[in-house]
């Protein structure tokens, strides 16, 4: 039985989250919590030069927060910090604009999260990994 939101891509990331685990020597380890839902994530980041060389996450959450964390981690690993930040902004805009993006941008698997833009109560779920990542980058750039 197909569902417009809980489609194959989202459920695949939920069941088999990519980059799930920890890094042996993370530059930054940061926790993100949504206490009202019970979502809890810990993200390990390894920076090298201006690059996000490695990212792993652990934790538990709903399908939307898990899938979003998985897609994000897969997408941003190996990208420059500027590119990562660009993607954070792009994803936030994508949600703000009702799950649409400018024509020339391929959102990849993230496109499967478009439906969440229509569910204000779930925005926190879909963003928790992203805001945690953002905070991690911020911590790194301050240190």
């Amino acid at each position, binding site marked *: *039985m*197909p*569902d417009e*939101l*809980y*489609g*194959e891509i989202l*459920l695949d990331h939920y069941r088999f989250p990519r980059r799930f685990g920890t890094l042996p020597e993370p530059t930054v380890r940061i926790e993100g919590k949504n*206490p*009202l*839902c*019970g*979502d*809890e994530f810990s993200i390990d980041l390894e920076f090298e030069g201006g690059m996000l060389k490695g990212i792993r996450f652990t934790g*538990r*959450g*709903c*399908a*939307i927060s898990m899938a979003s964390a998985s897609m994000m981690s897969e997408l941003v690993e190996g990208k420059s910090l500027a590119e990562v930040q660009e993607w954070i902004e792009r994803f936030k805009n994508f949600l703000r604009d009702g799950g649409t993006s400018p024509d020339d941008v391929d959102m990849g698997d993230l496109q499967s999260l478009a439906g969440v833009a229509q*569910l204000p*109560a*779930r925005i926190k*779920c879909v963003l928790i990994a992203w805001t945690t990542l953002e905070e991690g980058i911020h911590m790194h750039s301050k240190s």
Partner: protein
Amino acid sequence: MNNHSTVSKTKRIREDFPILKTLIHGRPLVYLDNAATSQRPSQVLEAYCSFSRSHNANVHRGIYSLAEQATDDYEQARSKVRDFIGAPSSEGIVFTRGTTEAVNLVAYSYARKFLKRGDIIVLSVTEHHANLVPWQLAAKSTGAELRFWPMKPDGTLDMSAATDLLRPPVKIVALTHVSNVLGTINPVKEITTLAHKIGAKVLLDGAQAVPHLPVNVAEIGCDFYAFSGHKMCGPTGIGVLWGREEWLEEMDPFLTGGEMIREVSLDSATWNDIPYKFEAGTPPIAEAVALGAAMDYLNAIGMDWIREHDQELVEQAMMLLSSEEGVQIYGPKENHAALVSFNVEGVPPHDLATLLDRDGVAVRAGQQCAQPLMHWLGVPATARASFYLYNLPEEIDRLLEGIRKAKEIFCYAR
């Protein structure tokens, strides 16, 4: 519940609730979040509007006719509350914004005045944050300590622990009457008797009890009882603290300002009589009147009928959910209030709630303002279906249908 006359009574009741005709995503609303807030019948809406249309003025102030009328209406609502919960007099009925404010009032005005370092406040891990956090702060500012009533695995209080637990210097026992997550109905009369033996005061959080069970505070014998209007067909923004007059007299005010004072000079003031001492500022007048109408409405239906109706629904829900593969339900198997918390294996509760909403079924998902209880249960969150007088057995079928659909999407959609 298959009793035809009960169902037809429920169907008649549903006619009083305009919102139940709403379509959600094209399907009739199945409202199963009554423990969060209940819906309002036309009679209550009309009482609110009619007061606003023809009787509105500030209370206890004006000498003109309209103000007298408004004051009468407001005080009549207080009398209705008194009768509804079997309080000995109207003086012990304090209108608040809700249960939260009522508990905070006691935690400030009673606890901060009478507790001292080393005193003990007894709570349980099932408490809603509203009956936990105010006591944490009261303990912090007085040097008192919190103790938690041991639980049995089924989510009931372990009454055999009472003798060990209830010893001096326990000064306050603050417990929920009915758990908003587990549906446990605590033996509040027995607890009160035990607590009084050592001179401790008892506050009961009745937010989930007063809407669903016949409650009589005189019979329970407790010292304070708190509840909200919006979970019992009334409006938001109105609730009640009932307190024994002798304690209310001894307590200091909570909020200060107009109405609660007698004489004011530039550097001091004296307090009005109870209950007005605790009703600073303009109260929610129309809301109080509408709460009175909600009590009239519930009385006309009959609290005994509501309890029976609730029980039939919750028993059916627990039976169907517990026999459904992959569904785990929480709380005691018997004597369960009108709600059931559960989890569906492999379907996180928030996703379940989103999927149920597609079919018009409204349930709660999350920690339900009881994070310590979630830790105790060992789950990050739960879903919860809660029932009220207008719910029908067929709505439980809609819930079950939605759960099966969610299971299918999550388990077999490859």
